[in-house]
């Protein structure tokens, strides 16, 4: 395409708060990343790290109130999404960027047929007659491995894995340039997980779609991602390509994540988990958000948060140890 840098998505200092009566929940605190066409980014973190909020922010789907995008920039195809009008957003969602939601059980409308729900997104974005849209919807269903005769069935007649396939079919129906997959496999059992991942990989190759894969499963990341960003308390603490993160782990939190994974190759008596719990995003500690749990804590960590430091080309760490 004519974009010289080949960058599809450009996020800078995205900050999203939930402003409630009980205080401000700082869900996302200034995250920045780029994504090129055809590239897949894994967004990894514990529950509550702000991954889903960040994804919803990219879709401009933060429930407002209480959610508010405080500052930052989201540029997709050269357009700043945060300044888009309502009308522009209708053309953006589902067409340029679409999202696979976490829980397939609830993501489909129970009273509309599966065919209706796939055809809906097609009719919104493509100039097609009703018949053509339903034809395409049935093709999409076949594409994700569901016989098209089941078009006229309702979501409750499908199993969880099949519902997730339908959700994927909806997300891919208009060939989006960016696909955000929010823990697409978490609600599924392991065999179905593998099938869904294989399917997504296949479809990504077919359509050259960029992807953001949100997960807390480091195994899923190695299967499908090119780049990884580790999130903690609403910040990206470490990011880089697979090798940077898996072989050349720098941030104490990332090390902790790997330390808490059992390994088949090396024998350890005990796993070394990260002690403590994720801080309450409504009440983040001063300085580095990770310092209360950090094994390499320095006195300075309590007062000052590190800036993002590029230690190798493309490998960023947000930790005072590497500043």
């Amino acid at each position, binding site marked *: 395409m004519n974009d010289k840098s080949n960058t599809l998505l450009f996020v800078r200092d995205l900050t999203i708060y939930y402003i409630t009566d009980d205080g401000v929940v700082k869900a996302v605190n200034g995250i920045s990343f780029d994504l090129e066409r055809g590239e897949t980014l894994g967004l990894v973190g514990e529950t509550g790290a702000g991954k889903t909020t960040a994804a919803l922010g990219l879709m401009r*789907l933060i429930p407002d109130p209480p959610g508010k995008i405080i500052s930052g920039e989201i540029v997709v195809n050269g357009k700043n999404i945060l300044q888009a009008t309502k009308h522009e957003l*209708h053309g953006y969602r589902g067409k340029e960027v*679409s999202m696979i939601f976490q829980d397939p059980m609830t993501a489909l409308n*129970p*009273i509309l047929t599966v065919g209706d729900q796939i055809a*809906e*997104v097609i009719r919104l974005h493509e100039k097609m007659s009703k018949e053509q849209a339903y034809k395409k919807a049935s093709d999409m269903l076949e594409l994700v491995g569901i016989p098209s005769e089941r078009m006229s069935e*309702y979501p409750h007649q499908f199993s969880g894995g099949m519902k997730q396939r339908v959700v994927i079919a*909806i997300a891919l129906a208009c060939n989006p340039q960016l696909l955000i997959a929010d823990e697409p496999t978490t609600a599924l059992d392991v065999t179905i997980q593998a099938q869904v991942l294989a399917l997504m990989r296949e479809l990504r190759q077919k359509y050259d779609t960029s992807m953001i894969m949100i997960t807390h499963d480091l195994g899923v990341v190695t299967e499908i991602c090119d780049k990884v960003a580790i999130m903690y308390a609403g910040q990206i603490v470490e990011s880089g390509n697979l090798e940077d993160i898996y072989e050349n782990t720098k941030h104490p939190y990332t090390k902790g994540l790997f330390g808490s994974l059992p390994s088949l190759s090396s024998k350890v008596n005990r796993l070394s988990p990260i002690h403590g719990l994720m801080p309450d995003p409504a009440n983040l500690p001063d300085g580095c958000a990770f310092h209360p749990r950090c094994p390499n804590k320095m006195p300075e960590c309590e007062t000052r948060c590190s800036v993002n430091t590029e230690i190798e080309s493309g490998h960023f760490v947000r930790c005072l140890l590497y500043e």
Partner: protein
Amino acid sequence: MLKFVIKRILVTIPVLLGVTLLIFTMMYFTNGDPARLILGDEATEIEVEVLREDLGLNDSFLEQYTNYLIGVIKGNLGTSYVTGIPVSVEIMDRIGITIRLATLSTLFAVVIGIPAGIISAVKQYSAVDNITMILALLGITMPNFWLALMLVLFFSVFLNILPASGLYGPLYYIMPVISISAVSIATIARMTRSSMLEVIRQDYIRTSRAKGQTEFIIIFKHALKNALIPIITVIGIQFAISLGGAVVNEQVFAIPGLGKFMVDAIKARNYPVVQGGVLVIAIMFSILNLLIDLLYAFVDPRIKTQYQKSSKKLKIAKEEG
């Protein structure tokens, strides 16, 4: 589906039996002698006794009830003590007015209540929402006969623009419909609001937003249809209440409907009329409930499958047994 309908109709039979037994027993034990009321104070004790014998009032409770039931099954609800006209004829003359009033009131309530509830839900905690909900609270708490009286006072007595009683043209319907539907509007609006609030937070609503769907279609196509089940339930109940609740309003506006007819009959110890009227209302309630149940299946495919499943199960059970 057909099996389900037949089953539902069969279930209403014991309900109606229960209704007849209850109302018959109540009237049986109420004070007052219908024979004396019919003949007036001047009649002699012997005349009264003869009439009592004629009407079967001296028979035992069980005999009287059995005779009544046999009559009902034959389609004979008895004869009015006061006019001598068959009860079924008298009810048929009046029921149309009551049904028309209840239908108009319910339609009015739906047309006002559902949009009000939707707006309240979509603009939760806004001024519109607050005002709507305060009005709804007023509507629920205000007794409808009082509202009827206030309407008469204001529109008929002060402004003199609406007729205060009778039912002779479209203008005559305005105040009865408003006073009967006030509670329904409020109840439907509140139910719509809470049901919509629950639905618009669902994941599938977010999914349709993520598709780029416009807010209007999301609310009316995706959300409202999902929120409809409890709303339909409330509309059905309100319709039934309007049928029965018209009793008081028909009295206030002097409307010659079933309600006023029954109140008069109760005052006159006109047993056959009261029993017949209650039975007819009970039948209408049952039909209404059946229609609502069928409407559920129409709105929600999951309920439809359930019905189909249960009839399938029956089939399998029959084949096996």
